[in-house]
């Protein structure tokens, strides 16, 4: 009814390999894009700066982590550090008058390079132990950044070895990206490109090799997959996404590069996002980001709202406590109900409608 | 339900259906009986559902997201298909897992002690351990050695011995012959027979190696594709043409058939479906 696969027959390889194999899927994606394009015309400043732009920029990072962890099975606890590398690189390049897009891409590449270095242990270590190796990135990189940045940046807010840097306003082919509206669209465009790339990537030889490594690396090796090569590639690509998202966060969201933002908490949150959203699922990255980044804000607002409606003057600390409790409990409940994440839940909904009204 | 002797069987499985993951239907109505003091064998090819049947009895399905959705299992007249494994073991059903599930990092003796976990505190376990060393003398020499370092046959012996520590009434043996040399298989089956006779333990034996299983068993069931397709006394089964053909590897005239032909033929001829 709503999502029907039956009746769609693929008579050529081209249609069979298409990104969206069912016309309806194509239409619904197109519909989502239309929504994404229309929303900003109605959004307030609040929605832009507190909901939409963070969502877009964080989702890019989540996508990268999901490629790395969800598809290739390389758990990383240092993603925020790679984000920081990308953000700082792009900011510094922008200060040196490198064009905006080039700065973003180079920021991504720099992060990829650093990610590659920290991915080297993956040749020998895996699983939880590898996660710990990447945790080292989370401690070493900010330390390095706070020492390198003051040497490179001609200006710097704090006089003393300040690692806090305001980027110049980026401009795209001569047009200044200034208003929230413009920031939103540039972020959206980049997110769409990155998403399409990710969707295609996981369907190629690389994606299949990753899944093989994730599911059983010894078996993958026996099948002739060069596992070291593909693991490193996973680190590079995942960190590239992190770097790009870092650049966008600095330019469009925070408006400032401040190393304190890219802490372990962020890394854990992103990991949480892909687990909650669904490991090895592109759409799961979107759901997960929404859950981890936006839900606490929603919770906070609605709890305050409910508290006020009920006539209590509740201190924000109590609300924050309840927010933590509810959020933590939601995470556990969600894992119990649907361990494969929100993407799986989404799948179930789709399956339900696909077969509707015949449930078996 | 009673068997031919008019006696209530020790263990009875009535028409059970097992579904994994809420999707995969593995057993489609399996019934079997194990009489007190008997050895019953369950034969069948890979994937026929033999192991699942055992796990349905011992309650080990749950961790694998399997579930008995229909039918019932009775042990000594008590329904057990929704009991937890510890309770089932306490009642006297112990499964010896396929592939010598020894606890590799524990010593032989510790393995045996763990086997007695369900017995009340304060039981004298030393006599039992000695009894097991008596049946499996090669274990006695290696009592302080980590089980992971034992040979395959010794591991299988340890697994069986460990199961005995729980004082079971029924032993569920899952392919004890797997991966062992023929001589060792012979020895293990001899011991199983002895245990059955001397200790009065009933045995439900899952095997692919039908000839040896039917040697020691009193009664046999043949499974295919999640169903029991044939059952009968061991003697009857041994003489059944189809069994001879498919499980004992003998042609109708008692000659060995080429393996290729057997497979070919099997694929064409099934009892059901």
């Amino acid at each position, binding site marked *: 009814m709503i999502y029907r696969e039956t009746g769609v027959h693929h008579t050529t390889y081209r249609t069979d390999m298409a990104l969206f194999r069912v016309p309806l899927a194509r239409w619904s994606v197109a519909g989502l894009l239309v929504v994404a394009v229309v929303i900003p015309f109605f959004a*307030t*400043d*609040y929605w832009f*700066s*507190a*909901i939409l732009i*963070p969502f877009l920029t964080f989702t890019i990072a989540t996508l990268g982590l999901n490629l790395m962890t969800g598809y290739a099975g390389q758990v990383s606890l240092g993603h925020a550090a790679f984000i920081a590398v990308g953000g700082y690189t792009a900011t510094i390049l922008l200060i040196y008058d490198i064009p905006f897009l080039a700065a973003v891409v180079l920021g991504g590449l720099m992060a990829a390079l650093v990610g590659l270095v920290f991915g080297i242990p993956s040749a020998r270590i895996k699983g939880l132990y590898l996660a710990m190796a990447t945790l080292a990135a989370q401690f070493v990189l900010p330390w390095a950044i*706070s020492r390198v940045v003051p040497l490179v940046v001609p*200006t*710097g*807010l*704090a*006089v*003393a*070895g*300040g*690692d806090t*840097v*305001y980027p*110049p*306003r980026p401009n795209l082919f001569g047009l*200044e990206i*200034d208003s929230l509206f413009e920031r939103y669209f540039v972020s959206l465009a980049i997110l769409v490109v990155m998403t399409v790339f990710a969707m295609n990537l996981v369907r190629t030889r690389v994606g299949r090799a990753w899944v093989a490594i994730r599911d059983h690396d010894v078996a993958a090796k026996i099948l002739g997959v060069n596992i070291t090569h593909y693991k490193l590639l996973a680190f590079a690509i995942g960190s590239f996404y992190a770097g790009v998202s870092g650049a966008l966060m600095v330019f469009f*969201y*925070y*408006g*400032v590069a*401040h*190393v*304190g*933002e890219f802490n372990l*908490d962020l890394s854990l949150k992103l990991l949480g996002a892909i687990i909650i959203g669904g490991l090895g699922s592109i759409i799961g990255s979107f759901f997960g980001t929404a859950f981890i*980044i936006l*839900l606490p*804000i*929603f*919770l*906070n*607002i*609605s709890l*305050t*709202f*409910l508290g*006020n*409606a009920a*006539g209590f*003057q509740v*201190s*924000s*600390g109590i*609300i*924050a*406590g309840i*927010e933590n409790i509810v959020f933590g409990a*939601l995470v556990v*409940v*969600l894992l119990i*109900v*649907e361990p494969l994440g929100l993407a799986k*839940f989404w799948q179930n909904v789709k399956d339900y409608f696909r077969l509707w009204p015949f449930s078996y | 339900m009673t068997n031919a002797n008019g006696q209530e069987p020790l263990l009875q499985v009535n028409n059970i259906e097992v579904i994994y993951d809420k999707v995969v239907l593995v057993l489609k109505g399996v019934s079997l009986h194990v009489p007190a003091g008997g050895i019953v064998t369950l034969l069948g090819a890979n994937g026929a559902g033999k192991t699942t049947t055992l796990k349905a009895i011992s309650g080990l399905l749950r961790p694998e997201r399997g579930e008995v959705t229909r039918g019932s299992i009775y042990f000594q007249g008590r329904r057990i298909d929704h009991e937890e494994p510890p309770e089932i073991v306490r009642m006297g059903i112990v499964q010896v897992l396929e592939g010598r599930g020894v606890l590799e990092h524990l010593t032989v003796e510790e393995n045996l002690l763990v086997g007695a976990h369900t017995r009340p505190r304060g039981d004298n376990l030393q006599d039992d351990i000695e009894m097991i060393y008596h049946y499996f003398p090669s274990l006695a020499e290696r009592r302080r050695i980590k089980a992971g370092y034992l040979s395959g046959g010794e591991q299988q012996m340890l697994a069986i011995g460990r199961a005995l520590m729980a004082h079971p009434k029924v032993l569920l043996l899952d392919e004890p012959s797997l991966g062992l040399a023929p001589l060792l298989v012979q020895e293990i089956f001899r011991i199983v027979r002895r245990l059955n006779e001397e200790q009065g333990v009933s045995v439900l034996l899952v095997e692919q190696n039908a000839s040896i299983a039917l040697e020691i068993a009193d009664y046999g069931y043949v499974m295919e594709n999640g169903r029991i397709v044939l059952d009968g006394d061991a003697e009857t089964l041994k003489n059944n043409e189809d069994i001879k053909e498919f499980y004992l590897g003998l042609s109708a005239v008692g000659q060995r058939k080429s393996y290729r032909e057997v497979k070919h033929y099997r694929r064409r001829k099934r009892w059901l479906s």
Partner: protein
Amino acid sequence: MRAKVLSLVLLFLLVAVAACARGQAPAPTPTQMAAGEPAEEASPTPKPPVESYVIGFSAYRTGPFGRTGTPFANGAVDMEKLVNLKGGVGGVPIDVMDIETGYETPRGVEAYERAKATGRMVAFIPLSTGTTYAVTPKAFEDKVVVLHTAYGISAAADGETFPYNFLAAPTYWSGDAAIIKWIQEQEGGSLKGKKIGILYLDIDYGRETLPLHEVLAPKLGYELLKYPIPWPGLEQSAVWTNIAERDKPDWLIWRLWGDSTPTALREAARVGYPMDRIVGTYWSPVAVDVLAFNPEKSVGVKHIEFVTPGTDFPVIQEILTELYDKGQGAGARDQVGMELYNRGVYNVGILVAGMQIALEEFGHPLDGEKLAWGLERVTPETLKKYGMGVADLAPEVTLSDKDHEGRGFVQVVEWDGTQFKPITDWISGFREEVDALVKQAAQKFKEENPELYQE
């Protein structure tokens, strides 16, 4: 079961989204709160011309610094209530929207936007350096006062470069300069040959005053010893062994914060470093830190203050009688009067003073621009008149359009076993060097953000 739970979760999400969409800013309550209270009669106009003036506040009672954030937040909220009980600002209640952020900058930005969405935000209290950095450019555009008392961007002391950022309290540089000045006095006027160690968290905040000391040390002849401590600084015994066994500095200046401070106190006690030779910056060691170590063992430890701690002030007494005695206090009673608490009171008080001054000139409705104008006219006299009692807490603040710091006066307070007590008058020092740093940093900000100054 699964379906049920999921639908419940979804339902909850829907409610949450609906609440966001409808309210964004959840209905502020000061008007409800003030209802039935004497506030109504006290206000000159029966119906306020504006619903309320919103002060956005990124509070953190949770997160890694929740322990230090709590008294501050409670102080601010209590002061809000007190101000509203007394009729608000010219009859208009103020609404301190304390939004919990757990010291996370994204949440801080969200809090800013949430407060801004009310359309009535005149000022924002970020209470975090990261948030200050992130909202400062926004505030330029939105014309909203950002008040960061003794943290955030020190360069904002230059009011011409930062029209909407106000410290209304000394910068870190002023603080350390005053400490050096005070130590110099203790040493009989000369620091020649003395060793002064700086124990600092190895982050921007900790490092910020190093350049000042690089300038002062050669000038005054003291030897500067640096003891960086990596965040979060819960284990410091190596540093302290160095201090005690090798360097033996004559004085220690602390630039720690949060959980690292009790640890430092403990290690100081272990190696036997004299407590009375420790002078901390504004944020360490504060009372909650000392209590988390040992009140008796910490006697003599000092830090500098821009508000006076204690409860012996009319405004604090009023809070105790009007709120806490009636069970309406925001926090624990024994935290009232702690320096962090009084700072929260001061933050709201100085904004109210600015608003009242602006009100005299412009009348209702006020906005951020007018508030900034009002704040620039805060002097000891005007603060006394309009500050609802906070002038007692910080008597020496003089702001102007050039100076958003207020001359940088601090006082040294000492732990006497039960509380921090001032042991000096309001002091400052080495203004020339400090001003040079402010100029330099402000200049850099200007160069980095040319677009904020185009017009």
